[in-house]
């Protein structure tokens, strides 16, 4: 499998940084038919993006989960059945075989951009 380099990515502007809650709470954005969960972590001033679909319930709810840390990893807990997903990688902590799409992000001139593979 080929890994996508920055160049292959299609950077999509989804919202302004100040649209995101500044207290370690998630928010969802819609890009075409894709629902994306965004998490701004204030301590490290960084934005993370995951697909919003909770694979265990089939509902688009991950943006509404509680953010926290397990060891050194930042995670979000699904609000439905409480599985944890790594904010950087989308890996599920409870089930090795499950992971969700995690998207690269960058903030340019106050806008949040998400890298989707084209």
């Amino acid at each position, binding site marked *: 499998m080929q890994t996508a380099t920055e160049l292959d990515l299609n950077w999509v502007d989804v919202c302004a940084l100040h649209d995101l809650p500044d207290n370690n709470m998630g928010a969802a954005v819609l890009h075409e038919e894709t629902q994306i969960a965004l998490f701004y972590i204030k301590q490290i001033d960084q934005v993370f993006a995951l697909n919003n679909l909770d694979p265990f319930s*089939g509902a688009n709810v991950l943006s509404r*989960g*509680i953010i926290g*840390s397990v060891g050194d990893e930042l995670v979000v807990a699904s*609000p439905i059945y409480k599985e944890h997903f790594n904010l950087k990688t989308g890996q599920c902590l409870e089930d090795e075989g499950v992971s969700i799409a995690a998207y690269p992000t960058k903030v340019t001139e106050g806008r949040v951009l998400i890298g989707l593979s084209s």
Partner: protein
Amino acid sequence: MSKKTLVVIGNGMVGHKFLQSMVNSDVMQDYQIVTFCEETRLAYDRVQLTSFFSGKSEDDLSLVEDNFFEDNNITVHTGDRAKHIDRKSKVVTSEKGVSISYDKLVLATGSFPFVPPIPGHERDNCFVYRTIDDLIEISEAGETSKVGVVIGGGLLGLEAAKALKDLGLKTHVVEFAPRLMAVQIDDGAGAVLRKKIEELDVSVHTQKNTQNIVDGEECVHRMNFADGSHIETDVILFSAGIRPRDDIAAECGLALGERGGIVVNDSCLTSDDDIYAIGECALWDGKIFGLVAPGYQMAQVVADHLAQKDNAFTGADMSTKLKLMGVDVASIGDAHGVTDKAKVYTYVNGADDVYKKIVVSEDNTRLLGAVLIGDTVDYGNLLQLKLNDIPLPEYPDSLILPQRDGSGATGLGVEALPDAAQICSCYDVSKGDICQAVSDGSTTMGALKECTKAATGCGGCAALVGQVLNKELEKMGMDVNTDLCEHFAFTRQELYHMVRVEGIKTFDEMLDKHGKGYGCDICKPTVGSILASCWNEYVLDQPHAALQDTNDRYLANMQKNGTYSIVPRITGGEITPDKLIVLGQVGKKYNLYTKITGGQRVDLFGARQEQLPVIWKELIDAGFETGHAYGKSLRTVKSCVGDTWCRYGLADSVSAAIDIENRYKGLRSPHKIKLAVSGCTRECAEAQSKDVGVIATENGWNLYVCGNGGMKPRHADLFATGLDFETMIKYIDRFLMFYVKTADRLQRTSTWMMNLEGGLDYLREVVIEDSLGLAETFEQEMQTVVDAYECEWKRTVESEERTKQFSTFINTDKPDSQIVFVPERDQLRPARQDELTSTSAD
């Protein structure tokens, strides 16, 4: 091989225990069992008999598991007394004419209350106190009576006096001896006990010899005493001791004791090798044991003897510890110091009405007996010293002197006890059993109780069980990890104190000062809940919003497809037709699935996130407020219709429920709390299955606590009786605040109480007797919460900024197009996965 027949006469506490022991034994397969049960009820818990008055039902008291007789193929003849035993042909005949040939026979006929042959003793409204039927008669008589007398001031007499008092009668106790509880305690202790009981408004008359009972002038009876004095009374209870029921044994010629009782040997065999006797009818070594634990031992001995296993009855300790009318009383071994050359040490504290006495051997090295009144915390230690014959400290009086220098009690550590030491006599649990259970993983008081049953009977051993537990944990080097999570090395209770003491107002502040990492889905909601309990600030204010579980964060419960439910408060379950119409209209307008909940209100399901504020606005404009169905907080206060409509109602249960619900709504707590109010003991509101339940009686409100339904149902315990509304609210304030402050995360009131050392009694001490001196603080703190209440939804819909937080996406107003409903029974429901894939394929 055909089975042998085993006949058991008597299905009382011990008779039934014997059946259970048989069922658990291999020898059961050799026998066909038939039992005669004279009473119309199968075995029930006579020890707890008095609780029948405080609301326990026949079912609660029953000792017979569902289908016990059917499942184990035991024939029971209920309401039939065995009348005659033919030992030659080995046949038992009953009053109703049943004849059964036996191979082995067990007599478990118990005892009967002795009624002294005073002229007039057979008059109406003269009762004894032994069976449920007796209690039903007494309570019926109580309804038309004002005064009651108990003849006999022993243990049972005082218990009966308490029952009369609770029935609302002016109560007297008449005792022939110069003091109360003459068998168990001495003069000094009797005086302290008498004073305490008189303080409870029960008159005590000692050294009274009743000559006769005749017609009274103001009451039904007049009792004339030998000294010329008299009392008038409507009800008389005889409690002058018990006598073994040995008539059937006497008639067939079994050996009896001089003063009655069926003589048995160490295997509980009578003078006939095929007949055993157990329980209160049996006389062993010249002694009748009027307690249930020795009877249970005998039951096991007989089951073992039939199975040819080694076991013998070797006597039993008759030490007792109990709370009589709220007074702690205990007696151990040789309480009267009758042992030759015994030495006696006494400690009397007139100010606090405490009396303690120990009897020790001549050489000061062994404990022989003790009496404790007013303060029985030393009971467990003293009993163990006596039972295990442990050497005493150099100055034995140090055992009962108060430890004022904070050095902690002397006496023995639990470590000094041998493994065989019996810690819980109700369930025969030894120290070894407890240690084993701890090392097998029962590392909390609650788990230990569940696994060993220790401390779940009379509760007298709870403190000692706790000590053994702690010592074991210490030994295992197992500092039990009570950390909330990896981010906080504290318990919920410790965090609560920090919030209070340091005035912490936000999660970040807490994390900075006492935690590490970023927090998680355990500590964030916990701290959020504590902050809300303490300061009751709007939960969606910036610093708090991120702490809430989704349910709290959107002030609604998330459903399986990401939509939410809406539950407006319907206090006490009372709702006007107009409001009901509003609910219908709103449900219809937004196409919400509508259902009546188990909590006497209405739930509207299927609202999308962005719809929540709009729908709530409509509801609030129509006069509704949030029902906190999403919070760990007060849910519902269910009510029955009460005396406003119901012909049996004794109080206005609906108004009471509404007042109570309005008082505690919004209170954030470790777990959800549910309450209910019933208008009479028919209990249509199911108050006894609630964290706090209230039932109206003729004498005021009865308060129950620590019940719940759910995964592990538990009946609530009767906490206080005959309260006026105001006092009851005070108790509930204190109870709930104590719970909110000290319970663990997600611990409901029942588990919390089970884990408190001292359990329900301790809770009573804190809440009713104010033993911690915190009652006023609790009430004030509760008042602060009550005053700070506001409807979160009202506050939310008032502000545009807040309602904006509910939009599904921050970059568009579109809804989540992947939420799909399908019709069912004229309403909507979420599409299932398989239905989803077929609909989204197009």
